[in-house]
């Protein structure tokens, strides 16, 4: 952010200077949160991340659910955790699905840059092409032996050499019993994450901090696990170290692309928090109760409704929680897949924080004709498609009868809410995260941030603010930052994180007064903006 560099004045307040900040209230607080408050960024310690996976990934949850619920009925052994590894001996079709990859790479280039419209097409994927070099952020996945698995820009095939270099760097440092974390070269940051069998590398010249990049790489790694499961990944690479993982990931590139795009625009992934669709408390209760009553199915672990990347409701099996990181992967699955809109689907999905060793089976369907309201029923029983399909029909009928679908639809059409509704002059935008529930809220983007490029700049400022507050060397509680075009205030307590953007002329006292007022407003609206209870089956 060049703009931040100029004419800025940073005032970091310390404990003694916060008499005006009232810490007692944390709107959106709840002891009965529907999901785990996730690892927030300050808990992202590099050593934890690079620890062997069996310590950080949860395993066996699916097995224990199956054991609990199915000893009475099925003679068949529980068939959820499928460890069948596909036949990996045949190597003849490494070029198969070329048509598909073609399509994918096309769609990438359409989505990202206008400048490539007239760019030399053949040059587009080359490491030396200016277009490739000019990308703001690169993310690469390679196998331990240096084989390309995924690249956000360009085609992995043409990046074999550069990925070889990355692998060499990592293993060179590893040889001296050390690990390579990051390299800073001019404006560029290179961040490395080494996990079981995979090396992830992120390169940015944007506003992302090293830790933020690391978090993003974690998401990407979890996305791989979500598609393949950790067990399958380990098994494959144990059998053949130089296996070309792209074969198993064909068709999944769009999940990575979409996830990375979401991370560049959705504050939820940065904050490790989920945005809920604003809904009347009673309507939300009705929706949850409808699901509870009509989806009383053995082995159903989670039922949730998602609309436009926002959570409408979540019902869970007793004792089991959904991690916000897993929820982001579910949202990404829905967001990236057009194919769910055509028909009811039944698809395996692994939730790494829930159980990295096996798949849950997801029944995915849309409840409205516009395909905006998506119902997901996640079960450990692979044969329950038709049972769940009946549940879905019942839920749909009831929700239509109670006008709940209409309520969701009108909330979607109204968009979120305007900053003006908070009644605070000079407040332009804010992000508020309730830490105990891992949920966040923020108003619609309005002028001047709805102009092209400006939304990106705003997001960059939030990244900067978030980074300054959470930086591991010197974590801050409050940061008042006067920039060239706006003034930022960040405030973190036990209960919440608040990032607010004001006009450039606001004074410190003015801003403090405003955020206190804002907290009161959020408190008043908390029933609508957050999910504060957690219904179970």
């Amino acid at each position: 952010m060049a703009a931040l560099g100029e004419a800025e004045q940073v005032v970091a307040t310390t404990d003694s200077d916060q008499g005006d900040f009232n810490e007692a209230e944390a709107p959106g607080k709840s002891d009965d949160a529907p999901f785990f408050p996730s690892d927030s960024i300050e808990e992202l310690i590099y050593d934890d991340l690079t620890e062997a996976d069996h310590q950080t990934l949860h395993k066996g949850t699916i097995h224990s659910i199956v054991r609990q619920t199915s000893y009475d009925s099925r003679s068949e052994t529980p068939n959820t955790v499928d460890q069948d590894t596909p036949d990996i001996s045949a190597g003849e079709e490494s070029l198969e699905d070329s048509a598909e990859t073609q399509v994918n790479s096309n769609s990438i280039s359409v989505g990202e840059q206008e400048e490539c419209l007239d760019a030399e097409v053949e040059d587009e994927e080359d490491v030396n092409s200016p277009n490739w070099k000019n990308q703001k952020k690169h993310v690469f996945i390679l196998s331990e032996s240096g084989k390309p698995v995924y690249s956000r820009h360009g085609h992995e095939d043409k990046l074999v050499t550069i990925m070889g270099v990355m692998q060499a760097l990592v293993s060179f440092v590893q040889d001296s019993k050390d690990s390579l974390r990051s390299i800073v070269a001019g404006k560029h940051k290179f961040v490395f994450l080494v996990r079981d069998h995979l090396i992830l590398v992120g390169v940015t010249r944007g506003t992302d901090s090293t830790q933020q990049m690391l978090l993003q790489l974690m998401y990407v790694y979890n996305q791989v696990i979500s598609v393949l499961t950790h067990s399958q990944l380990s098994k494959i690479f144990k059998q053949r170290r130089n296996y070309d993982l792209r074969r198993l990931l064909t068709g999944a590139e769009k999940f990575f692309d979409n996830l990375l795009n979401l991370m560049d625009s959705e504050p939820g992934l940065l904050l490790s928090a989920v945005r809920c669709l604003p809904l009347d408390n009673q309507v939300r209760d009705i929706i949850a109760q409808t699901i509870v009553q009509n989806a009383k199915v053995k082995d159903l672990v989670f039922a949730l409704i998602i609309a436009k990347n926002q959570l409408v409701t979540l019902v869970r099996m007793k004792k089991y929680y959904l991690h916000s990181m897993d929820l982001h992967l579910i949202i990404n699955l829905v967001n990236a897949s057009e194919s769910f809109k055509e028909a009811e689907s039944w698809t395996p999905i692994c939730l790494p924080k829930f159980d990295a060793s096996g798949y849950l089976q997801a029944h995915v369907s849309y409840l409205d004709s516009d395909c905006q309201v998506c119902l997901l029923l996640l079960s450990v029983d692979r044969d329950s498609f038709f049972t769940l399909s009946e549940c879905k029909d019942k839920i749909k009928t009831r929700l239509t009868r109670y006008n709940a679908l209409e309520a969701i639809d009108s909330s979607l059409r109204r968009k979120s809410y305007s900053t003006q509704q908070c009644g605070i002059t000079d407040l332009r935008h804010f992000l508020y995260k309730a830490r105990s529930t891992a949920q966040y809220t923020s108003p619609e983007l309005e002028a001047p941030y709805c102009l092209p490029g400006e939304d990106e700049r705003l997001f960059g400022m939030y990244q900067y603010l978030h980074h300054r507050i959470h930086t591991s060397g010197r974590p801050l509680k409050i940061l008042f930052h006067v920039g060239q075009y706006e003034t930022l205030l960040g405030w973190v307590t036990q209960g919440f994180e608040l990032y607010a953007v004001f006009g450039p002329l606001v004074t410190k006292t003015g801003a403090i007064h405003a955020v206190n007022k804002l907290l009161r407003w959020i408190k008043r609206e908390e029933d609508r903006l957050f999910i504060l209870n957690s219904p179970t089956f």
Partner: protein
Amino acid sequence: MAGSKVDAKVVLLGKSYAGKTCLVERYLKNRFLGDTVPYQNTIGAAYGAKTVTINGKNIVIGIWDTAGSERYEAMSRIYYRGARAAILCFDLTDKSSFDRVRFWIGELRQHESECKIYLCGTKYDLIAEDPEKRAVSVSDAKSLAVDCMADLFETSSKTGKDILEMFNKIAQNYVASKNLKEEKAEDQSFVLKESGRRHHCLCTS
């Protein structure tokens, strides 16, 4: 599967981009989006059902349109388990997709011997346009069909060629085999009783 009101379960298998989803789309909704909507690979499997009338009887066909990506192969059993018919799709312009069909034949023979196989070469319209594009010869396809006692169709989801015919054939075969089974079942109950009596006789004598 519990709770299904489905008579005949049909599963589509084959390499990704072979045209399975378009085939189902044409059959269930009678439309073709391949020219307007960019290619979208299926995630997991999609389900659709249609009621057809055969000899004055209504039959519900439940169709599983599976994802072609390799990673789903290990899990594909949950989709084809109990299927009465499997449509093995291959792209007539792509030889490798035809080779993949053999894999599925082996798989089905091993796990679902009851399942009737239908070979379906897709994207016939491309060949009608330009015969040069054909990568799978009719004779190759025919001999494979004979090998696995399958019916062979060459279809086009764009024009609709032979798609209704194929599903009608599936439905008819299903009815025929069901009738045959019912007859057999009656036979069997008779035989069982008889053998029981005989057994009894032997014991007492």
